[in-house]
């Protein structure tokens, strides 16, 4: 019994430590700059939503939030759509070069963005996509498509092959089987995969900022710009930071029981 209590205490301490930096950000976002500079305060004594209002009233911020969400959405749709048939093929069949191809996809998943920043810039500049949401969405495919294939392959493996065979005997054509029977069976997997594509596209900033300059600048990049431009507006910075956490916090609730499987690339 004693160990149960002490492990609960340890857990609570850890969770508090984990939330402290986030709490601090929220704390600062609710105070004015003068208030922040006047000294430390463990909670906002005169909370104000002034900075949040300023962000929502400023078209640059609102536009940037839309930009971030749209390249994330485009990327997620593309990644999951192309990865589904590939994951099925890798799990169900042998074909020439399958192992090499699977490994090659994996190496792209691990590719350091820093290596690709400059060539991507040249590439998207040359094809006229620079500073559009498509450039970022396509660039993020570099790691999200392989990620989606890997996670989905794990989930496809969880569906017994007998189902494919039974459907074929029952006279289902392959496309009909795949869409009507198979996709609903791995709906969980598709949800988890979409979540991970969303997440990695949302958090990645090196490529997103390299490939955009003004029209398609992501929200988190506007944040960095704004603080170098206007001196140190800590309060505004904190409020913007809090807003970047909202989409993640919302979607994570839906996949909380499957997160681990996604992080293990579908291999738990």
């Amino acid at each position: 019994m004693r160990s149960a209590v002490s492990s609960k205490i340890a857990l609570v301490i850890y969770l508090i430590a984990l939330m402290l930096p986030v709490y601090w950000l929220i704390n600062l976002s609710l105070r004015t700059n003068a208030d922040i500079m006047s000294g430390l305060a463990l909670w906002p004594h005169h909370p104000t939503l002034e900075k949040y209002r300023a962000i929502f009233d400023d078209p640059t911020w609102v536009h940037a939030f839309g930009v971030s969400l749209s390249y994330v959405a485009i990327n997620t749709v593309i990644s999951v759509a192309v990865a589904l048939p590939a994951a099925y093929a890798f799990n169900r069949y042998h074909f020439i070069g399958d192992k090499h191809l699977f490994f090659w996809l994996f190496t792209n998943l691990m590719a350091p963005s820093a290596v690709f920043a400059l060539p991507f810039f040249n590439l998207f500049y040359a094809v006229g996509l620079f500073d559009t949401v498509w450039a970022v969405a396509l660039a993020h495919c570099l790691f999200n498509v392989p990620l989606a294939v890997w996670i989905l392959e794990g989930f496809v493996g969880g569906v017994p092959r007998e189902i494919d065979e039974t459907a074929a005997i029952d006279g289902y054509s392959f496309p009909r089987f795949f869409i009507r029977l198979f996709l609903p069976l791995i709906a969980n997997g598709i949800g988890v995969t979409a979540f991970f594509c969303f997440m990695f596209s949302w958090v990645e900033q090196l490529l997103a900022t390299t490939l955009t300059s003004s029209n398609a600048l992501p929200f988190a990049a506007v944040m960095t710009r704004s603080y170098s431009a206007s001196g140190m507006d800590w309060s505004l910075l904190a409020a913007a930071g809090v807003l970047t956490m909202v989409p993640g916090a919302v979607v994570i609730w839906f996949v909380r029981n499957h997160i681990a499987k996604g992080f293990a690339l579908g291999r738990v």
Partner: protein
Amino acid sequence: MMDKPWNNRAWLFVLPVLALVLFSSIVPMMTVVNYSLQDSMGVNNFFWNGDAWFRDLLDPSTEIGARFADALLRTFAFSAAALAVEVPLGIAIALCLPRRGWAVGISLVIIALPMLIPWNVVGTIWQIFARADIGLFGAALTGIGLPYNVTQDSVSAWVTIVVIDVWHWTPLVILLSYAGLRAIPDAYYQAARIDGASRWAVFVNIELPKLQKVLVIAVLLRFMQTFMIYTEPVVVTGGGPGSATTFLSIDLVKIAIGQVDVGSAAAMSLVYYIIILTACWIFFTIMTQLDRRRDA
């Protein structure tokens, strides 16, 4: 595993992925290879330079070679430090999590939250949090009399970057370990209780062996990610003070974009990429071995 039928038409299913990843991987990669073998005199005036960039880079007596060797060493040291904290801490917290009940969902969501914050915002959060004047962490450390200063003192900078990484990514280890722990049937624990096994004996003999696979995944993923760390140190320390926290990725971007020394940067990219590729291959081999054991 063995009864998968041969079917080369499966290639058709893979084609869209192949086309997309070719576009976003091979094309840029060829640009890098191109740059690494040429030198430029101004814009668009390239000439063949052979393997000179590589020879400079891998020779620690040249300036760029020394810089590369230092950055490489720093990056390995950082990976080692982060892993040494994150893996034991992650396992410990996973063991503390309740196996069922209302607290599980909430705990998991809180634990996963840091991983869903854009990486430069993670940097900003800690940049604020570590300041001695307006940040709780910095104020607390200076308050108890430690010479803590992220921008001036390289020990502080290092500690901060490791703490950030621990804060940011221990959750990954926790989630994986927790998933592994939940997969252990209750019967194992009951048997251990009947035998009167101590808590430690249960951990060493039951939990650790069952966790082996997820831990391998966790360690390898964390190694790769720490090895590629870029955004957080750039925001918090800018690679400094001096070059104390200039890891490989940071140095690469500095050389390529800051100094527009494209040839060196490209050669460096390729060497970096080959290291990653080797690590990937080890990862892949271990993973497929473990998968095979699962299927057997």
